[in-house]
């Protein structure tokens, strides 16, 4: 039996919000319909984390008003640090407000779209209708996807036409500077046939407190032979209840690679699924995290492989300190028909304190005979033999520990293509493990 949940907004309020933003009638209907579904649908059930007491429904305000940035000079220092002034393609959102957009003329001429999601809903209704929660994530998967669809209040749309190769990375920064704000961001990246794009997003809090919700859905759609590299550093403050869903859909010969630095201080359910639908499609998923304080974290990473000769790689490294509790679920699923597919995964958790917890839970689901698969998982402390070795060269214990931890988290740091973002992640790690 499902229990109907009283949601924070009514259908009328959602329709009013849609109208206020000049959205087409079809999108208002989409929202209203999603909200009705959200009432009845069940919450997701992340394996080994009980979220029944988590508040994913109520928030202080659906949207907060923020001023746009007239120029990059107005950015807070913490944001300036991650944004390269020369960055050709940049979108900055401040709480729920599209605050700055820059896209090179060259890309515009080629038909590349980089715009906030509200503008996309208005000006690119055909593409939005085609891809928005139709291919990668479905509205009715569970209560949180439906709630997200009803309440989307930010995000970005990136569209790369056929055969277009975007040379410079596209940078997106979501700034959180109002404790009342909730982020229902929708990120939609569509790479048409034989296109290529690198997208890097940063979530950054400049306030120390959050009272709202995070319910983010990200869809990456790589059509035949397209290549998408997706980098992210999540660095939101404590106090949110967060659901971060990042999903990939790869068609024939397509590639979706992920490099995620998941450093948000709030309790968070991370759901990362990549569907390798087409033959020869590949995904290389890498994430690192540092859990601190009393936060609860669930990282569920799934690569589903229908494609023949597809290749799914999962690498997850986590450092847990204080009394942080974390679950690392890794699932490689080769579907019937996915002959010659390969699924590999590795989860490693480094515990820095007695009270911290980290469980690595590797799962391989194989519905086809002619495949290869493997997994490795470990949970442990910093190896005393490593510390001894480093110290025997004159390096202090603190510095030796720092080197080992940074080395452990290097796989993602080294894979981030924007220097400022890479540096920021290094600094966040430095601060968190100290």
């Amino acid at each position: 039996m499902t229990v109907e949940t009283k949601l924070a907004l009514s259908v009328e309020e959602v329709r009013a919000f849609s109208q206020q933003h000049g959205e087409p009638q079809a999108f208002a209907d989409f929202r209203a319909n999603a909200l009705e579904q959200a009432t009845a649908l069940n919450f997701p059930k992340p394996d080994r984390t009980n979220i029944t007491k988590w508040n994913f429904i109520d928030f202080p305000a659906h949207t907060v008003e923020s001023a746009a940035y007239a120029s990059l000079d107005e950015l807070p220092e913490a944001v300036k640090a991650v944004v390269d002034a020369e960055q050709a393609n940049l979108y900055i959102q401040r709480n729920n407000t599209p605050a700055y957009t820059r896209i090179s003329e060259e890309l515009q001429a080629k038909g590349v779209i980089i715009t906030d999601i509200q503008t996309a809903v208005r000006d690119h209704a055909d593409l939005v209708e085609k891809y928005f929660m139709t291919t990668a994530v479905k509205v009715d998967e569970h209560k949180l996807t439906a709630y997200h669809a009803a309440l989307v209040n930010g995000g970005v749309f990136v569209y790369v036409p056929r055969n277009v190769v975007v040379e410079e990375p596209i940078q997106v920064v979501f700034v959180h500077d109002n404790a009342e704000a909730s982020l229902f961001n929708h990120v939609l990246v569509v790479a048409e046939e034989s296109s290529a794009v690198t997208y890097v997003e940063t979530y950054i809090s400049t306030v120390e407190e959050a009272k709202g919700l995070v319910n983010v859905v990200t869809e990456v759609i790589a059509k035949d032979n397209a290549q998408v590299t997706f980098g992210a550093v999540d660095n939101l403050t404590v106090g949110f209840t967060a659901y971060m869903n990042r999903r990939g859909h790869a068609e024939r010969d397509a590639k979706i690679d992920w490099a995620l630095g998941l450093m948000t201080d709030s309790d968070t359910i991370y759901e990362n699924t990549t569907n390798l639908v087409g033959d020869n499609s590949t995904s290389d998923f890498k994430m690192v995290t540092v859990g601190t304080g009393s936060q609860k974290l669930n990282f569920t990473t799934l690569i589903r492989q229908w494609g023949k000769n597809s290749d799914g790689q999962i690498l997850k490294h986590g450092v847990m300190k204080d009394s942080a509790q974390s679950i690392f679920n890794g699932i490689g699923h080769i579907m019937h028909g996915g002959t010659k597919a390969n699924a590999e995964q590795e989860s490693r958790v480094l515990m820095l304190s007695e009270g911290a917890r980290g469980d690595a839970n590797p799962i391989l689901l194989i519905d086809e005979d002619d495949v290869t698969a493997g997994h490795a998982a470990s949970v442990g402390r910093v190896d005393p033999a490593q510390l001894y070795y480093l110290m025997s060269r004159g390096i202090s214990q603190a510095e030796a520990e720092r080197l080992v931890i940074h080395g452990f988290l290097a796989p993602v740091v080294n894979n981030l293509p924007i220097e400022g973002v890479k540096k920021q992640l290094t600094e966040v790690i430095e601060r968190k493990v100290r």
Partner: protein
Amino acid sequence: MATLEIKDLHVEIDGKEILKGVNLTINTNEVHAIMGPNGTGKSTLASAIMGHPKYEVTQGEVFLDGENVLEMEVDERAKAGLFLAMQYPSEIAGVTNADFLRSAINARREEGDEISLMKFIKELDKTMDFLEMPEEMAQRYLNEGFSGGEKKRNEILQMMMIKPTFGILDEIDSGLDIDALKVVSKGINEMRDEGFGCLMITHYQRLLNYITPDYVHVMMQGKIVKSGGQELAQKLEAEGYEWIKAELGIEDADAVTEEA
């Protein structure tokens, strides 16, 4: 001249006594070799001097130029001038060989007096070239995926870059093919001078064909039982250890066991 002085050293591991009173004095500009059958405490001596956490010193002293080494943390021993080329170097993912070496060199220098990047790179290139190591090894993660021979070369590379006062080499020759052994020996011989003393622990006399020691010591049952010059090593090579056992009345039954 600097002196490393080991006095009546007794060492236990997991409550079992391995070293039962080792006495040894090494000066700079000297190369000492410690030989002996497996499981007699040779590697324990090396690890105890460096301060491996598993080894407990129950009696005796180690002085480096009068400073009590046993009171120092592992990193302080290194900064005081000791270096141990390990038998089983750790692998550390995510830390490049070059970054690690620079940290190690700078750890021994004062803040504000760090080695310049240019100088470091120049010296690293030169030393790697000397040890016939491919350039890309500088950017590989520390010992990760290195072959046995590559790890040993990397230990010598570190010693040459860090320039300790005393180098202790724990079975630097085991498992090396002859080409690698020649290169490793070349590195050690290059270090020999007035500012450097060396203690080589080996199981095989072959190493001493490439590095001529000034002193040879034989260790059995946790003690140094015989000392001499190069001729002692040659006699061991020709006749094995049995004659020493007979001479000193040592029986194998109570041979100590030793880890790594």
